């Protein structure tokens, strides 16, 4: 199905936001959102239309224990870690310093690889190593591990696979990103934590210098950029 078709995107988004899209269909739509901007915008528009209707529901104060539970969870994060959260990881200087040395080389080799779909290129293997594990990784039910991604010679398919068992809470999802030498990462979609995922794209975004995996809410990031911690990063062409 062509999810960029406005009528289709609008109808699916209306079903999703009104709540009548259920079960597997709901999961599938959430999985499509990161890679389909038209669908994402349609969902956003419907949320914008319908959410104010809830203003008519009489507020109900939750018991104090709810806040106590939230506070206990969010305070577990040590203070040292917090400054790192203030910027998106890809905006941090350190990241780019460590990155710049090979960025040119990577861009060239990626460009060669990607702009040459006719030639039979061998698949490229990218190992995504665990970044500094978030301090509350254990609390989020994550076990540090690495991912391996193999990119087909024509750049149209990526297969990701965890190298060791990754356990994830049911309300979290992993999202794969293509990181360009400059600018924001582009979502490639959600990937499985417990097995292989085949990500099919018309083309890996040109000049992609690295792949990254972030921790996201079930449907993936709704903002178009990583919202959770980046768990794994792997550079192309190394």
């Amino acid at each position, binding site marked *: 199905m062509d999810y960029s078709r406005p009528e289709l995107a609008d109808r699916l988004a209306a079903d999703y936001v009104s709540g009548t899209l259920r079960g597997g269909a709901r999961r599938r739509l959430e999985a499509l959102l990161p890679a389909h901007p038209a669908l994402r915008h349609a969902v956003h528009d419907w949320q914008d239309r319908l959410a104010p209707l809830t203003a008519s529901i*009489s507020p109900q104060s939750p018991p104090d224990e709810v*806040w106590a539970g*939230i506070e206990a969870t969010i305070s577990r994060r040590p203070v040292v870690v917090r400054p790192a959260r*203030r910027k998106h990881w890809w905006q941090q200087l350190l990241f780019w310093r460590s990155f710049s040395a090979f960025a040119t080389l990577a861009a060239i080799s990626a460009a060669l690889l990607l702009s040459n779909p006719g030639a039979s290129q061998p698949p490229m293997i990218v190992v995504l190593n665990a970044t500094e594990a978030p301090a509350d990784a254990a609390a989020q039910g994550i076990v540090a591990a690495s991912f391996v991604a193999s990119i087909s010679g024509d750049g149209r398919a990526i297969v990701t696979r965890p190298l060791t068992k990754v356990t994830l809470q049911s309300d979290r999802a992993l999202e794969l990103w293509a990181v360009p030498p400059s600018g924001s990462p582009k979502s490639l979609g959600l990937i499985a934590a417990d097995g292989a995922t085949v990500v099919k794209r018309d083309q890996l975004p040109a000049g992609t210098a690295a792949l990254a995996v972030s921790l996201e809410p079930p449907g993936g990031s709704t*903002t178009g*950029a990583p919202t959770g911690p980046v768990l794994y990063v792997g550079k192309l062409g190394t």
Partner: protein
Amino acid sequence: MPSSRADWSSKSEELAKLLSRAGLGDQAAFAALYRHSSAHLFAVILRINRDRAQAQDILQEVYVNVWRAASGFDAAQSQPMTWLTSIARNRAIDSLRRANAQPRLHSSHGKEDEDNDVYDDTADDSPGPLELLNQATLARQLQQCMEGLSAPQRQSLAWAYFDGLSHGEIAAKMAQPLGTVKSWVRRGLQALKPCLDKTRSGSGD
């Protein structure tokens, strides 16, 4: 009553500031955000998942997720209340999916009877979904939009949106074929769309 479009927007401005500070790791701002928005989100969740204990767990998860995602919130893109409400609604609807996989439990009532009205075992003084839609309608001066809907369109839409009922559940309650209910909800939404869009652009956001 936070029931007018203007209140929704003005509250949103304040919440946007709190959210951006929470995104920088400011726990005091996050606590204030919780104080200002939790009663609304709890009410939204409770209407969809009527099990209080589950609703509390959902609310807690929602705010923990909001804390983690706060730095990614884009005030230029969405109103905070809309953003928060959408997160809460999604989690509440997902919890129904899980609950439906198991036999449905109503903690305070022993016997489950398919013919029981859903409202038999809910707090009596809470307004029905149709009433809510009417209140919201009045508050947002959408009377004419709502009048454009047929009565069954209005009713099925209200059950779907406020109470999280599936097409199948609405069909059972209304004793109508599934396809009929699907088209009521869908046509109801499509009929509301231009009208809601008009009020959106009219309120300047």
